């Protein structure tokens, strides 16, 4: 009986095919990685509302007399109306006389809260002293519809109080600064026929510079409240 010899021909993979595939694969990986890196560097398109009142649209403060202009660093606003505030206190308060608050938060690393845990020995003293541990920056706006008065005037060695014209609206604001070497809280308060108003922000000192709005920006915000009256 004759032997039957079966020869299975193994597929031949040429080395140049392997090389070509590896190069192609490597090229594809490079393209994907480069695309991802470039894509991650692009910020989301920033949509700055044309009118700051859009920041509170759909909230209880939608129809409130409020700023039409805020600095570009402001992207968000949180509105609190009398019912919210009364509920937050946990006891009945005369809601008819409570103000409505809008808190504008400012974007940017310098305006972000840097606390890591609660204050204590885990916070290195030198970093604390440099201003490395600081809260988030915000601008608080409060409207008291129907009111004709400002808050009691603050006094102190580090306090300056002056009147400042609001050129667009033709009103005058009381600007109270707690001036601690150029930093500290600033209050801008004024009245018009519809009520009284307050803006509060802190010119903050951080380890990398400053945080918060400028006094000029606060004045511009105040001036914009009555901007559409004319």
């Amino acid at each position, binding site marked *: 009986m004759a032997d039957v010899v079966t020869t299975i021909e193994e597929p031949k993979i040429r080395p140049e095919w392997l090389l070509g595939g590896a190069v192609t694969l490597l090229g594809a990986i490079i393209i994907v990685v480069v695309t991802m890196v470039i894509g991650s560097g692009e910020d989301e398109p920033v949509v700055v509302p044309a009118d700051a009142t859009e920041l509170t649209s759909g909230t209880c403060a939608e129809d409130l007399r409020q700023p039409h202009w805020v600095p570009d660093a402001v992207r968000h606003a*949180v509105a609190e109306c009398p019912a919210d*505030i009364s509920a*937050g*206190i*946990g*006891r009945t*308060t*005369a809601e008819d*006389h*409570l*103000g409505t*608050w809008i*808190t504008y*938060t400012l974007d940017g690393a310098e305006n972000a*809260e840097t*606390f890591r845990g*609660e*204050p*204590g*020995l885990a*916070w290195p*003293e030198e970093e*604390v*002293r*440099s*201003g490395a*541990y*600081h*809260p*988030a920056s*915000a601008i*608080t706006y*409060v409207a*008291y519809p*129907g*009111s004709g*008065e*400002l*808050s009691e005037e*603050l*006094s*102190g*060695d*580090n*306090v300056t109080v002056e009147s400042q014209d609001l050129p667009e609206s033709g009103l005058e604001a009381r600007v*109270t600064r*707690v001036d*601690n*070497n*150029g*930093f*500290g*809280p600033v*209050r801008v308060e004024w009245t018009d026929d519809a*009520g009284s108003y307050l803006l*509060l922000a*802190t010119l*903050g*000192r*951080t380890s990398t510079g400053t945080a918060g709005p400028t006094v000029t920006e606060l004045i511009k915000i105040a001036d914009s409240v009555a901007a559409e009256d004319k």
Partner: protein
Amino acid sequence: MPTTRTWLQAGGGTVVAALIIAAVVQAVNSTATWVSNDPVGECGNTSGGEVVAAQNVLWAGTGLKPVDGAWDSESEVATEAFQAYNGLPVSGCVDTSTWVTMRALAISLCDPEFECQGPDHRIRYAAPGGSREAYFAENDCDWGSYVQPGVARSPVASNKVIALSRDAVTEIECGG
């Protein structure tokens, strides 16, 4: 020669005048209490109602917890952070300039021409995921601290007005 009746009238008038002057001085002091408190911290009071007030502000401004009216190293670090951010000399002691800076952050909840009762001023800091708030009562209370639940610790009770005084932690009743 003045009669006994004249002397009595003069004496009575003097007493009345003294009482009026004392009342005026007291009123002025109570108004100014918030901005001219005693120092709090290692340089001053380390317990009592003024410490509660300072800690209440530091809770809002730095996340200090608990508010218990007892000064400690955490309170001092919180004060240093507050002072640094506000451009104050960093001492860890709540001195007059620091008190004034804290006071400037308090905003009336009610319109300024209406005296709402109970907690009527608030210090509010935006924080990740919400806010930190400290309340104070002024009208009918000569300023008092009002600490939120979850922040206060005995002997400080939450949702009670604590006298802003150098004395021990004392609850006071506000009108209404």
